[in-house]
């Protein structure tokens, strides 16, 4: 058997699944003693160019409480044309179309390499995708212009038969009718009054109209177009119209007096968007895309008042319970998010402003519906423009990398029941953390040598409007934690575990005080070290961790310092933004977020990854740091001097020019690939933006241990934060302590 590392990688590539433990403890008690929970990261729509979907429907277990899908792990009696469900052990008859199956003639879903398989559902009407733009008009002129251009551009990227709609808002909310000729028409709503979905539909005339006048004009064709057609139109029909409409879009005309914020009715606008889709296209693929350039300042969902002298809430205010509008606003957006999720739609938030925009309150809209959240300084930045463009990028098949109305169902041996979640929006990198509980009691453990199976069933609407079901069935061995601890230990996936623990931590941080979360995280780490470390009691120097655990404490160290758990220096919006992305990126990206990657460029050799440590900051190096959200290029002191002297322009120093260019090229590559586009920072020794680098590296040298000051060994960081060394030392001490 290959190493676990290879096994894990294979599994991830094939099924998009990574477990914290690849051998499962056989009882509940054992599982809890493992400290790191039995959990997995699942990327349900992992791109699988090698996996063409099958054009038929899955075979389901006939037991109504089970409904598991036929998979390679099922036992099949080819003669009797029976199969046994490996979850509930129900014996099922194959459907008539399967009469010809035999050992040599198996359907794809029974072949082991199709542990993940995708079915295309042929039944049911197919609805076009829906994109509803919700656009803030309280923007600066050039911001609005840039946004308008981006939106106009996006029309050309949409599938031609997709339906688009436009809602604009400022002090009022306008729902634009798109089908009109000659005169542009919109329905206008007060920005301060929340309306129920029913009211919205009534006011927009979306309720089925009685047709008393029909007889009066018999000449008219009787066909009744879709009631919503006025507001949602196929792109190919109205792209000219809509382009003009967007072009004529004016800034919110209501005067904003000195010392006031513009009145922005984001809450009502979103409510109307949700209500519009709710009534007309429930359970179809729809994206509400909210573009906002500032905080909601009036009506339901307002986050801050319009007086500029009262600043928007900070973490400080929140801790002091001083955020007047936060609870109410959050409740409003949660209500909207829940309704949206129920309808299978999703909400994207594109917030571009220098100050906060209320992402903290609105985050649930994106979080609960699988929408995107993008934060930037202005719509007039490449960060927004390219990120937005990337949303409409296409995969190898020319399909959009987005899925709608997704639900995930997990079937698991030993539980018997099923669990379902509504995810709505999904993209190929969306990754879910799923935490399991072993329910077998300690005195009746799962029999040795058995295999536990889990089936993930993801139903979604593909961007081609097809309804699809992706089924992944995996199995892992059960092991008795007492006798086979080494097995279990060896099957530990520390990367997955770190991310899963981090997700738990972030989840807790949403509702608990920061220090509590850190304490919990520390305790978990200590317990893990106690459980799996090799040491002599009360002797820290004897402490060892096996290879499969070796990196874990380091991840935890950086996690503690990460913006996901530390709110210091971050606004509530930024925290929400970081956490949002952390909770949905795949394992690799998540690890970058926890522990940024640092590359060093020098004349001494090819670029190499170096320790994220202050000792890596050297005068004759160029550093490239990738924190997922930021790409920082940092030029060492000497490099800066060289550049100032203009060596790069001298033909004889061409290599220096190449050296300067290399990190830029690499950075571009990352920028191109990533969503959302990271902030790109090009700085140098002594530059103000160097702080982005300095705040991330491990402060191995600080003003407190000045021995390295001014030496070639790196740059001291002016911080009181503990360094990794100190952290690990403490950890060892605590792990071996019997008092703990």
């Amino acid at each position, binding site marked *: 058997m290959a190493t676990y590392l290879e096994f894990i990688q294979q599994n991830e590539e094939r099924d998009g699944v990574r477990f914290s433990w690849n051998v499962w403890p056989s009882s509940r008690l054992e599982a809890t003693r493992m400290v790191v929970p039995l959990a997995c990261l699942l990327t349900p729509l992992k791109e699988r160019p090698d996996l063409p979907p099958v054009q038929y429907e899955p075979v389901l277990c006939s037991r109504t409480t089970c409904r598991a899908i036929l998979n390679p792990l099922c036992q099949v009696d080819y003669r009797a044309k029976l199969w046994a469900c490996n979850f509930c052990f129900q014996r099922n008859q194959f459907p008539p179309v399967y009469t010809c199956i035999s050992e040599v003639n198996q359907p794809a879903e029974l072949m082991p390499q199709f542990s993940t398989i995708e079915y295309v559902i042929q039944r049911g009407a197919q609805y076009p995708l829906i994109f509803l733009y919700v656009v803030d008009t309280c923007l600066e002129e050039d911001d609005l212009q840039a946004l308008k251009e981006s939106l106009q551009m996006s029309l050309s990227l949409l599938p031609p038969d997709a339906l688009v709609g436009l809602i604009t808002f400022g002090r*009022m909310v306008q729902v634009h009718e798109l089908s009109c000729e000659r005169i542009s028409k*919109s329905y206008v709503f007060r920005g301060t009054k929340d309306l129920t979905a029913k009211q919205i539909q*009534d*006011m927009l*005339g979306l309720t089925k109209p009685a*047709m008393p006048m*029909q007889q009066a004009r018999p000449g008219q064709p009787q066909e009744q177009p879709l009631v919503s057609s006025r507001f949602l139109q196929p792109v190919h029909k109205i792209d000219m119209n809509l382009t003009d409409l967007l072009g*004529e879009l004016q800034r919110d005309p209501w005067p904003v007096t000195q010392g006031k914020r513009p009145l922005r009715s984001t809450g009502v606008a979103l409510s109307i968007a949700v209500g519009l889709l709710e009534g007309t296209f429930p359970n179809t693929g729809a994206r509400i895309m909210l573009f906002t350039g500032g905080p909601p300042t009036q009506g339901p969902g307002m986050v801050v008042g319009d007086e500029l002298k009262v600043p928007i809430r900070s973490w400080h205010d929140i801790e002091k319970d001083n955020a007047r509008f936060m609870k109410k606003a959050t409740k409003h957006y949660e209500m909207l998010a829940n309704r949206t999720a129920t309808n299978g739609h999703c909400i994207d938030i594109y917030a571009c402003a220098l100050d906060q925009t209320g992402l903290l309150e609105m985050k649930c809209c994106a979080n609960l519906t699988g929408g995107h959240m993008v934060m930037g300084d202005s719509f007039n930045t490449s960060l927004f423009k390219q990120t937005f463009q990337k949303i409409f990028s296409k995969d190898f098949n020319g399909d959009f990398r987005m899925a709608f109305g997704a639900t995930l169902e997990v079937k698991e041996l030993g539980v018997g029941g099923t669990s379902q979640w509504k995810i709505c929006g999904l993209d190929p990198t969306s990754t879910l953390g799923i935490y399991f509980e072993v329910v077998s009691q300690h005195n009746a453990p799962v029999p040795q040598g058995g295999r536990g199976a889990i089936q993930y069933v993801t139903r979604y609407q593909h961007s081609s409007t097809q309804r699809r079901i992706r089924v992944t069935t995996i199995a892992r061995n059960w092991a008795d934690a007492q006798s086979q601890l080494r097995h279990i230990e060896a099957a530990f996936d520390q990367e997955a575990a770190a991310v899963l623990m981090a997700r738990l931590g972030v989840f807790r941080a949403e509702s608990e005080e920061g220090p509590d979360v850190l304490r919990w995280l520390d305790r978990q780490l200590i317990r893990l070290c106690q459980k799996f470390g090799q040491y002599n009691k009360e002797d820290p120097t004897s402490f060892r961790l096996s290879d499969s655990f070796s990196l874990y404490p380091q991840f935890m160290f950086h996690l503690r310092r990460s913006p996901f758990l530390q709110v210091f220096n971050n606004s509530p919006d930024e925290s929400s933004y970081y956490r949002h992305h952390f909770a949905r990126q795949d394992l690799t990206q998540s690890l970058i977020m926890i522990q940024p990657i640092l590359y060093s460029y020098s004349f001494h050799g090819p670029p190499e990854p170096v320790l994220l440590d202050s000792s890596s900051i050297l005068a004759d190096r160029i550093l490239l740091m990738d924190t997922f959200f930021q790409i920082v290029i940092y030029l060492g002191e000497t490099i800066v001097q060289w550049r100032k002297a203009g060596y790069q322009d001298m033909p004889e120093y061409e290599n220096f020019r190449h050296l300067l260019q290399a990190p830029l090229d690499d950075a571009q590559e990352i920028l191109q690939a990533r969503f959302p586009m990271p902030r790109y920072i090009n700085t140098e020794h002594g530059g103000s933006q160097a702080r982005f680098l300095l705040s991330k590296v491990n402060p191995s040298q600080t003003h407190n241990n000045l021995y390295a000051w001014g030496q070639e060994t790196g740059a001291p960081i002016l911080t009181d934060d503990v360094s990794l060394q100190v952290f690990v030392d403490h950890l060892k001490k605590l792990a071996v302590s019997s008092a703990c």
Partner: protein
Amino acid sequence: MSMMKPAGPLGAAAPGGMLPQGPSPPGPHQFGQNGAHAQGHPPQRFPGPPPVNSAVSSYAPYSPSTPSSYPSPASTSSIAQLGHQLSAMHVNSYGSGMAPPGQGPPGSPSAPLFQGPSQPPQPSIMQPGSQVLPPPPTTALNGPGASPLPPSMHRQDGLPGPAPLNAQYQPPLLPGQTLGTGYSPQQAANYGPQMAGGQLSYPGGFPGGPAQMAGPPQLQKKLDPDSIPSPIQVIENDRATRGGQVYATNTRGQVPPLVTTDCVIQDQGNASPRYIRCTTYCFPCTSDMAKQAQIPLAAVIKPFATIPSNETPLYLVNHGENGPVRCNRCKAYMCPFMQFIEGGRRYQCGFCNCVNDVPPFYFQHLDHIGRRLDHYEKPELSLGSYEYVATLDYCRKNKPPSPPAFIFMIDVSYSNIKNGLVKLICEELKTVLEKLPKEEQEETSAIRVGFITYNKVLHFFNVKSNLAQPQMMVMTDVGEVFVPLLDGFLVNYQDSQSVIHNLLDQIPEMFADSNENETVFAPVIQAGMEALKAADCPGKLFIFHSSLPTAEAPGKLKNRDDKKLINTDKEKILFQPQTNVYDSLAKDCVAHGCCVTLFLFPSQYVDVASLGLVPQLTGGTLYKYNNFQMHMDSQQFLNDLRNDIEKKIGFDAIMRVRTSTGFRATDFFGGIFMNNTTDVEMAAIDCDKAVTVEFKHDDKLGEDSGALIQCAVLYTTIGGQRRLRIHNLSLNCSSQLADLYKSCETDALINFFAKSAFKAVLHQPLKVIREILVNQTAHMLACYRKNCASPSAASQLILPDSMKVLPVYMNCLLKNCVLLSRPEISTDERAYQRQLVMTMGVADSQLFFYPQLLPIHTLDVKSTTLPAAIRCSESRLSEEGIFLLANGLNMFLWLGVSSPPELIQGIFNVPSFAHVSTDMVSIFFRCFCGNVQRNVLCSCATTYYKVKKTVRHIVLYKKENLMF
């Protein structure tokens, strides 16, 4: 109701006719017997009074009638008698008395009545048109004087049916009665020997008229209609004596010429009668005296009245930052009544007698008679009317006002689209917007315009000049209307002309497929008001509406038209608004200077009483076109619209009427809103709107000082200037009742009576109101008889010269459909007329209640002048003639059945009477070429049209089998 006073016994004299006799017109006629409203008023209701000549019918100049004919006159209060007589007169006019040739509709409700009272218990009671009389063909046109028939009448019922006009005609002749020719002997017998001219001197009376005495009872049945004082004669007489002259307003208490008389008015210290007219120009000195006479003390003020071009427009006084000079105590404005003393350093206020310092900037020396040297240089010292430029203190929030805005709000529901109205309005707006009113010195109008269409939702339009095409914003939240856009809604017409034209072209098409039947109304007004509020300017909403607003929204109305309420104490409910939404809306509108003008195009009941409330309280105008038909009514409507847009108007106005000590203004009637007892607030006031103010004593008045009235109107001009318009008027005071009666003006009295009665309609049963009117009239006359006239026979009715036609006019008022309900007159029409009268000036109300009847067939084709009007009575209509009847609201053309074919040919271009159809009305007014006869007739009608801008409907009636 303010005018009712308990009538004390005033002697036993039974009223008897005694009047100077005018020239007797040929043919018997009884004036003012109109309409068939008798149902429910059987003559038996009027027993008791001794047989007298009806007040109106006895016009023999003072004849010692035979007292024997009046049994125990002393036993009854003369007032009561007069009252009974008046009401008898009034009621009888609806009775069966009138039996002109013609057929009554079978089963006419009045028929049984006709039979019943034919044997009245008191045969001696003289009731004009009494049942026993062979009545002359007196039934006048129904419309004029009472209630002009809405055109709907003849349209709705498709014409062949009996129209109310003639419904009255009672075919049967009573035994012993003859028609037509039979009159002369009776008439002759009717009048006793002539008396020598009465002791009352009637300046401008009818010299040489045969004086007749009221005949003996058995003869009194036969009244000579010509013996009734003729309004025509009175008008002609005043014209003859004062017409074409210069009337200078330099004398206190001077009674001006009648409204019907053309003359040039020169302001010499008192406001022109065009601005203020009083019921009397001599106030009684004490309140006791006022109570005794019961003559209402009132002024009808029309502050923005149009002045003919040959009279001087108002001067504008500008004191710069100092603002107008005002009395420190009562805040009266500087005017000719201020007395300068102490060498010009101080002045005594003529209103409150407070002595004020003259502000330094205003100081001027006095001449030898104590007049300032600059007396004739300063309009405020020498003129009755002038304007001040107001300072910022007089502005809202101390900010100069913005120029007003006009917002056009068009009902685009199915019916309006279908009948082409929307298209018509949109087309017309393109033209009229070119003619927005502007200040004289300005090149373009400062008025901004905005557009809203609506059915059960509202559509706002952005017509900003830089847009390629208009933008429409649909407001569906009618429950809580707001203004969805600021910039681009109210625009300068010139700047946005192309976008506006684009919009007006599109509106009819945009809603061409609309099936929407339901409309909202209150939210429409609300939206306009909010828009003006947001733009911080006053303005006017032009609403074009056609149906009962039944859509779910504030101000939603239901059809509550209930004929069963008629003639019950609950009838007043029909005149009250259905919900108080409109009341509070009107209040808001006034508070923000938002005037609402409503054009109504109803095809059925729309609840004018509710819909019209806001227009009325905000100084707007209500126009109503029943069953609007493009080819018939569009010209009419367009003229109204043009006039309304172009007419002189002031916005955001507050009027204050100050008086000298001893009396004060107590009650106000008109298109006004009052938050307190003194400030008359008007969102706007235009040149056609008058406010009637009633005065009461609160102390004695001195004969020397007289009674002074100052009316100040603070308003915003169409150019956005804040101004004060001041009108001053001085009246005499006297402790002699005769002086009081001598200075009365009947036209103003009727205006006052009409408005106070129409206001009371909301709160009191109509019967009570009618009684009050009758009693007060009787009381006024009785008081005169008792105190001013020489002793005369109790049977004689003695009328002061100034009130000669009061009974006639009062009768007209009593017969107006507001005060007297008839089932065939729609509730909406009554509410409409009620509202219309409330803002009328004296000239309008005079014409409205006593319409002009022009014998077209006597037209001199070579002359451009109109034929002389004749007395407005049905008996004056001859079968050979063609008559035009106009009351300022409607015009009726009446064709006699034997009108000369050449006239018919000339006018209608059809060979004979039988070929004429009602549709030809439009031909009638459209043709301007060809035939001379037609030409003249047209010019006659159009001249009339121009003179009376409010002329509304033109209805054609043919006299043929009653109606067609």
